[in-house]
């Protein structure tokens, strides 16, 4: 692998995304993407006493699912990158404690999953690992409890507020495709922190859009590609407002991404029917999307 341009790494033998798996909560199961998820839960507790325990269980079951789907025994997975939104990444660490794979706990909030995939693919291409497990999770109730208000509090959410997705995504990266047709990660462009001073915690899409724009433009410059090179350009959770901002700002910088760009936060919920305001949040959705990955 080698670095090109300012911040892009291009792989010699692009790692395969051998298998993916996802489990989502009941609200996501009512959304337009329901049929793409491996498992949909009927309630937020899943038989557990607390939301945190439920989230750990979601991680545990999802990781077990991705391992059994892939056909690779857990003992052959070299490392695991996982994280979530809760303090000390408790959902991931409790969810993965029985699995006996060396564990890197990561926290990138909305970017955790792609961060895990990025680090994992560097491990695989460098030869440090042959198989890497990446996982992440979030839970609407545990996230509200930790970052916002108790669920029973009778407050109103502004129209720009987003809705944290309940669920988990997991993927196995591999140096060989084991005879399957798999997408590959050809290059990565880790982004910088771009703070344009948005202070409204209920308008995260607008807060994150400038960083997404910066990363996209850097990626295009580093690789010499144009937006039309891609079948799809996907961001994690900019939501409806952030998506619009990104499209307009990219256009003003001379990049037209209108035709092939979309956002997972926009896709996962039906804005009109599901009362999620500006869309979903959390980038684990990328378990089935193809940002930076060219098949």
């Amino acid at each position: 692998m080698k670095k090109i341009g300012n911040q892009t790494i291009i792989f010699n033998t692009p790692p395969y995304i051998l298998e993916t798996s996802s489990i989502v909560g009941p609200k996501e199961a009512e959304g337009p993407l329901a049929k793409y998820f491996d498992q949909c839960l009927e309630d937020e507790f899943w038989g557990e006493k607390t939301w945190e325990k439920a989230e750990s269980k979601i991680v545990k079951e999802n990781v077990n699912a991705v391992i059994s789907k892939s056909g690779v025994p857990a003992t052959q997975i070299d490392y695991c990158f996982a994280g979530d939104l809760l303090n000390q990444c408790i959902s991931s660490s409790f969810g993965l404690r029985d699995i006996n794979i060396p564990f890197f706990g990561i926290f990138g909030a909305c970017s955790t999953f792609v961060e895990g995939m990025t680090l994992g693919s560097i491990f695989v291409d460098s030869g440090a690992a042959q198989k890497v497990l990446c996982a992440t999770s979030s839970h609407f109730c545990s996230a509200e409890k930790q970052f916002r208000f108790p669920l029973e509090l009778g407050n109103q959410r502004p129209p720009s507020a987003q809705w944290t997705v309940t669920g988990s995504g997991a993927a196995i990266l591999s140096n060989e495709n084991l005879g399957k047709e798999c997408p590959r990660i050809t290059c990565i462009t880790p982004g910088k922190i771009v703070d344009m001073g948005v202070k409204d915690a209920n308008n995260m899409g607008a807060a994150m859009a400038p960083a997404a724009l910066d990363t996209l433009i850097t990626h295009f410059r580093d690789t010499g590609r144009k937006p039309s090179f891609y079948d799809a350009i996907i961001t994690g959770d900019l939501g409806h407002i952030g998506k619009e901002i990104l499209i307009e700002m990219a256009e003003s910088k001379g990049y037209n991404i209108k035709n092939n760009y979309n956002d997972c936060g926009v896709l996962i919920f039906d804005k009109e029917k599901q009362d999620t305001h500006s869309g979903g949040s959390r980038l684990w959705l990328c378990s089935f999307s193809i940002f930076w990955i060219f098949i």
Partner: protein
Amino acid sequence: MDKIETKQEYLDYVDKKSPNSPILKNCFNAFLVGGLICSIGQIIFDFCKYKGLEDTACSTIVSIVLIGLAALLTGLNIFNKIGKFAGAGSLVPITGFANSIVSPAIEYKSEGYVMGVGGKMFTVAGPVLVYGISTSIIVGIIATFFV
């Protein structure tokens, strides 16, 4: 679209892009539900007075009943739905205060009765208590010396 160079330009742009809360609708709902809660309070008050209680006792009973009702509805997962519809209408009366104490108590029960329920019960209502009590002390001092 204009070129965005500075943070202020971006913030102005975001302001334009973000939909505003439906203020008229919110105000109307708040008026309706807030008025209804106050009317219920008045009915309880008049009823107590009719039964021959003193004014101060009637007021206390109104507070107790409304707090009790709000706490019960919070526990039944109904108050947050009323609050979503009514906004300030259910939050500003004493019902909102009850809800702001009961909801963290339910939320943090999973962390135990001492550090969870006991420790986190006032996370939302805490500021109201701190500044409410502080203000009343200052007003009390002013009243003692100057009035």
